[in-house]
């Protein structure tokens, strides 16, 4: 049997640079938009779409199809990844067993208002959005040193 010759993998520097540029634009464009238009209050889904749109437009204007295509691919990955996490439990959450039914851990709500979006601290988020629990986040309470002089 003849030996199959493997194709030599060619390092395409131009393509690498284009994909890098696309990744940077997709990640950083939302922050740039927020700094110019701080009152927009975009939620995460919209920021990812805005980043993808910015990358695509950059590719079109510079006539670089790799940038445009890579932006779209990266945006799709960003959108699909949380859905996969929901199915397989993801890195942060462990499926909760309850009477034989596996339930997913609660996801934090979208940070439309920009406050208290510590995504790895569900209890802290729950305290403030429901206001039904004790305020037990010490980061929010005033220390006795800061209020003692007032009385």
């Amino acid at each position, binding site marked *: 049997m003849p030996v199959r010759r493997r194709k030599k993998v060619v390092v395409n520097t131009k393509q690498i640079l284009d994909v890098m540029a696309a990744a940077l634009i997709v990640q950083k464009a939302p922050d740039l938009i927020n700094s110019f238009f701080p009152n927009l209050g975009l939620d995460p889904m919209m920021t990812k779409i805005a980043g993808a749109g910015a990358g695509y437009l950059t590719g079109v204007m510079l006539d670089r199809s790799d940038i445009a295509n890579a932006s779209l691919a990266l945006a799709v990955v960003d959108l699909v990844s949380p859905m996969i996490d929901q199915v397989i439990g993801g890195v942060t959450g462990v499926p909760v067993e309850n009477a034989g039914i596996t339930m997913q851990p609660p996801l934090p709500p979208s940070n439309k208002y920009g406050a208290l979006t510590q995504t790895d601290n569900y209890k802290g988020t729950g305290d*403030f959005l429901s206001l039904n629990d004790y305020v037990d986040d010490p980061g*929010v309470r*005033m220390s006795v040193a800061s209020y003692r002089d007032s009385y």
Partner: protein
Amino acid sequence: MVKSVPMNTRDVLNQNLYPSSYENTRRKDFPYYDVQAIATGTTEYYFFVAALGNQFARNKRLPLSGSEVFFIEEIVGYIQLNIDTVALVDDLNELLQQSYLEISIDNRVVCKLPGLDFIQYVYGDTLIATGTSLAPKTHLAKRKLPLPIIMNSTSAFQFKFVTTSAAATAFNGINLRLSLQGLQLDKLDSFYWDNLKQNQFQQVPVTYYNTVPVTGAGENTYELFADASINQVLFSQTFPLSDIQTFSCQNIEVFVNQPDTPIEPTTIYNSRLFNVLKIRIDDVSYYSANLQEMLSIVAGFGSTLTTTPDTAVVNILNSRNSKTFKVPLEFPANSKVRITLTQPASSLGITGEITVAMRGIETRRVA
């Protein structure tokens, strides 16, 4: 991961008011003051609405201009009359326990402070015949806010003082002065600053107070912060809290006054000192102790010296004390709260009023 946005206006104050140079604002330690003459029949007074013109009366009229922001750090009031008779002590107590200053921002009440929080007065033991004060003293209370109240350029502010008709009659023609101590920012460049932007919650300094009448000398438990149907001047908050607010209590003061028939004030003080204040939150006992750290009293008593000729004197006991908690009492939204004050049998000071004032920070949803 996005970090939480700080809600603490103290952080905002420190961040914006005390940086070094090359900032676009001019900072000044600048008090605003205004005066209103109390008049019989008028129980509501609005400050900082009169036109400027008399520098001895006022130096500010609200709203602020578009280039100013003001941080209120202390609130001070002053009743311009020497308290030197038993009747005036009684009237002063109405001003302290049954009057309040309501601060509203953009049609939303920020806090309702009872008079005992911030009203200053002069008083003194007196020889009745000559009306001479034997030892005049000043009581220089001020309500120092743990978090500043921010008067933004574009906000509508209202400072409303409400008192009883009896106090209005007693102090008819007397000036009540209000002073807001704090820091003023003059904007050197035009900018729009919104301290609530992107925050879902805000924290404001508050005083929850409730004034209850003493019903008799027998053993009795007074339920506090429980009845919202009483006169508005007698309370600022009842429990349970709504579902959009929580309260962190940092300081408590219990204030008693002289009875309708005055007796020696030290007798009242010694009697009230060992009443028991209990605070239960969701069936957990958070505080249960006597008033030794937190009892205040303003009471007068007239007596007659056995001299020739007989000389009538008035002596006034003015003692203010409050307990600041090292661990604040946290009141969650919608929680079951029971606050009671229990007096034993044969309590003296058989009439009069008791005011319990809880001071701290309220966290509430923005809008």
